[in-house]
């Protein structure tokens, strides 16, 4: 590569990364600041870990984080079950009466403004509570239901697209070999769409994890998720422990993503090698 590239390409690379990551880096940087004022760097006593220590003494915050995890797990699981079923119906059952409506309805939450989803959920929960006495008040249950509603659409789309590229004859072959439809699903379809289901689960979890608007509408007193907690705290003035919290979140996500990518890459390489080997053997 002796060709001269000029300045344009490296420059745009640097600017692009700066645009994306400078805010996060500055936040990380200030999380080690000793000063109470978020934007003033206290050079004498920094860096310090005191905000991180404070974080773990804050029960309210820990409760909110724990609730977020619970809601996220339940949401992702519920959304995966419903979304997979919807995706299966849309991808498999060919044309049927009401197909277009079902397809439109399952994907509508993708483009629905969150405020509308949140508000309509709130109204529904209140109305249902008045009519049946359930759900009693708003909290973990209502947040989870609302999150399932809007994350299911993403799972449906992912599963549907995976099934679209799926060789139907695999299922037919299983049936031909004597497997009943339930067995076919468990032993052939499920393992093959497992990557899509996993991706859907992670996406649903992430969406639930950082949702503010819908959670805001459907949470009740004493049950706020982490983003809702952060948001309400920030409104009363940014405090440096939020920086520390955010830094930890970013690092956690980054590590998970990198490890995932590394494992996938390794498997892909192994597979490629094996295919090459199989071809070479038959030469």
């Amino acid at each position, binding site marked *: 590569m002796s060709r001269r590239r000029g300045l344009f390409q490296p420059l745009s690379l640097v600017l692009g990364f700066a645009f994306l990551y400078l805010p996060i880096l500055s936040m990380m940087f200030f999380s080690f600041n000793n000063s109470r004022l978020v934007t003033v760097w206290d050079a004498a006593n920094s860096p310090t870990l005191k905000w991180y220590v404070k974080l773990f003494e804050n029960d309210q915050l820990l409760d909110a984080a724990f609730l977020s995890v619970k809601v996220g797990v339940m949401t992702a699981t519920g959304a995966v079950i419903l979304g997979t079923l919807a995706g299966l119906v849309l991808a498999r059952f060919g044309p049927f009466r009401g197909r277009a409506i079902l397809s439109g309805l399952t994907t509508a939450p993708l483009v629905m403004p969150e405020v509308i989803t949140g508000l309509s959920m709130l109204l529904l929960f209140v109305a249902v509570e008045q009519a049946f006495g359930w759900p009693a008040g708003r909290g973990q249950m209502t947040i989870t239901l609302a999150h399932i509603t809007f994350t299911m659409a993403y799972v449906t789309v992912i599963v549907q697209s995976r099934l679209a590229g799926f060789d139907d*004859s695999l299922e037919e*072959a*299983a049936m*031909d*070999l004597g497997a009943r439809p339930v067995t076919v699903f468990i032993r052939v379809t499920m393992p093959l769409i497992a990557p899509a289901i996993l991706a859907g689960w992670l996406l649903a979890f992430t969406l639930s994890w950082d949702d503010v608007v819908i959670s805001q509408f459907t949470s009740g007193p004493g049950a706020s998720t982490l983003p809702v907690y952060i948001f309400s705290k920030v409104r009363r003035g940014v405090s440096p422990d939020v920086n520390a919290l955010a830094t930890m979140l970013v690092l956690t996500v980054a590590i998970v993503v990198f490890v995932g990518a590394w494992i996938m890459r390794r498997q892909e390489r192994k*597979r490629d090698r094996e295919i090459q080997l*199989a071809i070479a053997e038959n030469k």
Partner: protein
Amino acid sequence: MAEKPAANPRQPERGKEYVRIQNVTKRFGDFTAVNNVSLTIYQGEIFCLLGGSGCGKTTLLRMLAGFENPTSGQIFIDGEDMEDCPPYDRPVNMMFQSYALFPHMSVEKNVAFGLEQDGLPKAEISQRVGEILELVKMGQFARRQPHQLSGGQRQRVALARSLVKRPKLLLLDEPLGALDRKLREQTQFELLGIQERLGVTFVVVTHDQEEAMTLASRIGVMNRGEIVQVGTPTEIYEYPTTRFVADFIGSVNMFEGRLTEDEPDYVRIESADLGGRIYVDHGISAAPDSTVWAAIRPEKIEISRERPQGSDNTVGGTVKEIAYLGDMSVYLVRLQSGRIVRVSQPNAERRNQARITWDDSVWLSWDPSSPVILTQ
């Protein structure tokens, strides 16, 4: 298969009737994929459904497997009506065109899948899987994953998987389609050997006439959802009953003409297309003076520089094109009428003194038994 087969081990009429397709029609919306097909397939034979793409052959096969239901008509397998019988209850297995090997299972798991569905004991499953993998010479690859296999090996695994349940009827959808030519030829003969050994009835779908000719005991030629002719490979090739079949199987020279002399033991046809008369040494059933077509295969035409005796079945022309194929040469000869005739001659001798070359004036002639006279 108790008795020792004579010359042709795949004689069709020997077995008892195994599959009966009765007036089966399949429509998809407005499109009729299979139109009123009736067919009988005998036990132990290899029946080929041959036709171009979209002729309905695959739909017919899928109806035998149970993946599609006929719009009307009935299918009997071993005397039983298959109407409400789902694919997993049919005594039939299928080998898919794409092989459809389960990518998340090893070779032995793939093959064992069908036996597991029957709830057989583990020991018996592994024994039968081992046997069938040996039969298709894939024993050493039992623990491989499908993506670690070549196309030919996958084809063998797919065959093993469809045979391991010992079906009475095996359906094969373009079984050799994905293999290269050399491998194809070899696999064709292996397939025949396995079929003979196990005595399974094969129904093969293919668009490849060569494949059909080598494999089949009988061929059913399909066109636009209908069976146009059923017969042994020889019958289909030498005695086609329609212009479609004559044209579809192999290459043929088709001359349109008028029936001028119609006697019980010979006929004469006046053909402007040919620019001469065609004499055929047997009677045909067609109205005098009607329009008929004479189909003559390229290898049944003699090409020479000297004019043969007689005036019937002889026509002059000029060589326009020669294709040397090694074992034989194909000549394209332009007649005075402007028609191009295809003639093929085996290259029996290494040095051919009288080798015919471009722009030579030549005479074409054929035996009175060679033309096939078609009325439709």
